[in-house]
């Protein structure tokens, strides 16, 4: 069978495209963070290699969850929560690392398209109020999450080892949410996105604490009864121990 030349040419181009896309290879130092009884936070190292002189950008995103942002106002001499705005998909974690300042790597539209940088995260508020009002709440969310160690507004540097190897570290506080995290690695060259790779990271409770947490959510009545039974036993035991001494 004979193929017309233009189609052969197209095939060659398609075959070449994956080769171009595979110019970055990455992995994480661990793919699972276990929140055990002794958990005080964790660090994960992301490392990889690239071909050529492109710019590397890494975005680590935690599971999205609805969050309510409230604003305090003075009521009868006390500071109480008044207005609230619900954001349907607040990020559980967000951090960016890049080999150069983002503005030098690609233009704003491309960064926005790939949601690189916290200002490009879609926060979709529950209602559309006047722009300035919503903006105050929209600005408060990352500020508070950053204080809790769950958002990095500053772009972290990426360390390069030689020409090909790169590495960066992400740290997670003890209050890190559970769920599936994604590390997206983008390779840019001359403002063009060449390639994207994703690595998954699972954060889950583990061991005794996980059992307790799961039990309290799945069987809350039994959990409550167990809590009372344990309390009665512990109280009785304490009474017996100290009566004899």
């Amino acid at each position, binding site marked *: 069978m004979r193929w017309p030349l233009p189609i052969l040419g197209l095939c060659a181009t398609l075959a070449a495209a994956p080769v171009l896309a595979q110019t970055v290879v990455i992995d994480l130092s661990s793919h699972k963070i276990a929140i055990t009884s002794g*958990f*005080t936070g964790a660090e994960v190292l992301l490392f990889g290699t690239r071909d050529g002189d492109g710019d590397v950008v890494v975005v680590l995103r935690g599971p999205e969850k609805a969050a*309510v942002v409230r604003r305090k106002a003075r009521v009868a001499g006390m500071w109480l929560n008044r207005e609230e705005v619900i954001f349907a998909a607040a990020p559980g974690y967000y951090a960016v690392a890049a080999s150069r300042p983002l503005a030098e790597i690609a233009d704003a539209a491309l960064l926005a398209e790939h949601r690189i940088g916290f200002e490009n995260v879609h926060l979709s508020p529950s209602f559309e109020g006047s722009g300035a009002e919503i903006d105050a709440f929209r600005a408060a*969310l990352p500020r508070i999450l950053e204080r809790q160690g769950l958002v990095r507004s500053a772009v972290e540097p990426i360390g390069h080892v030689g020409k090909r190897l790169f590495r960066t570290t992400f740290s997670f506080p003890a209050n890190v949410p559970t769920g599936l995290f994604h590390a997206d690695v983008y390779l840019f060259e001359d403002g063009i996105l060449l390639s994207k790779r994703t690595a998954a990271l699972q954060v889950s409770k583990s061991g005794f604490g996980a059992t307790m947490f799961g039990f309290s959510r799945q069987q809350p009545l039994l959990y409550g009864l167990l809590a009372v039974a344990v*309390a009665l036993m*512990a*109280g*009785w035991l304490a*009474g017996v121990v*100290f009566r004899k001494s």
Partner: protein
Amino acid sequence: MDIYLPIAEMSVNMLLLLGMGTAVGVLSGLFGVGGGFLMTPLLIFIGVPPPVAVGSEANQITAASVSGLLAHWRRGNVDFRMGAVLLCGGAGGSVFGVWLFRQLREMGQIDAAISLAYVGFLGTVGLLMAIESANTMRRRQKGAPRRKLHQHNWLHGLPLKMRFRKSKLYISALLPVAIGFGVGILAAIMGVGGGFFLIPAMIYVLGMPTSVAVGTSLFQIIFVTAIVTVLHAVTNQTVDMVLALLLLAGAVVGAQFGSRLGAALRGEQLRGLLALLVLAVCAKLGLDLMIEPDEFFSVAPVIE
């Protein structure tokens, strides 16, 4: 040594929790109080979410009251009939209190409501205690006669009268039911046993003998805090058993020291000290509500 609390979802120094348990245990042994009214604010001060502090502290108080109840039971100081009537009100009050707690939580007002409840409650109790201990000290100096304890008033004219043999009373059952209801609400919203409110009410309003009042209040507190624990576990999922047990371990040891220390000190001076402590905690909570915060915004997960 840090420990991750599974329900509070935070990492806390274990020695800090044991130390807090011991300190509050010493105070409770010293003053003969449960200590929930001090422990819950302390937990809030170290950053435990207020709803978890309340739910877990209710659980801890159940445990802390057991050995006291057994001791009073052996001495025959528990009026079970009175306890059961109080408990009818207490169960109703806990259900109402936990429902209210849930509503306030959805409205985003629970943290302020807990603080406000403490400010009102501790402020009143602290002032009353300060006045009482000042009066006692003055009376001791002057040697004035004591007032009659059990006085009849309009409250004793209510219907549905019941006889309580152990308390040597023939009064309307509505009174203990109402008092129990109030204590149930306090337990649900503040994570306290409510002995602070219950014992004076039993002695001064109902007219029960002091010895029976203490044993019977423990009976009521165990059941009410147990009901509150189960209701919070089901409705709000804010009972952290690990936290409750760590606090208990400290409190049990502390209470032993406290009761020995208490025997060596004078009563009204102790009460004066406790009054100062109560007023200090009250002032801290009140100031936190009134001082302009650095950050006006807060973020919380949406409650389904």
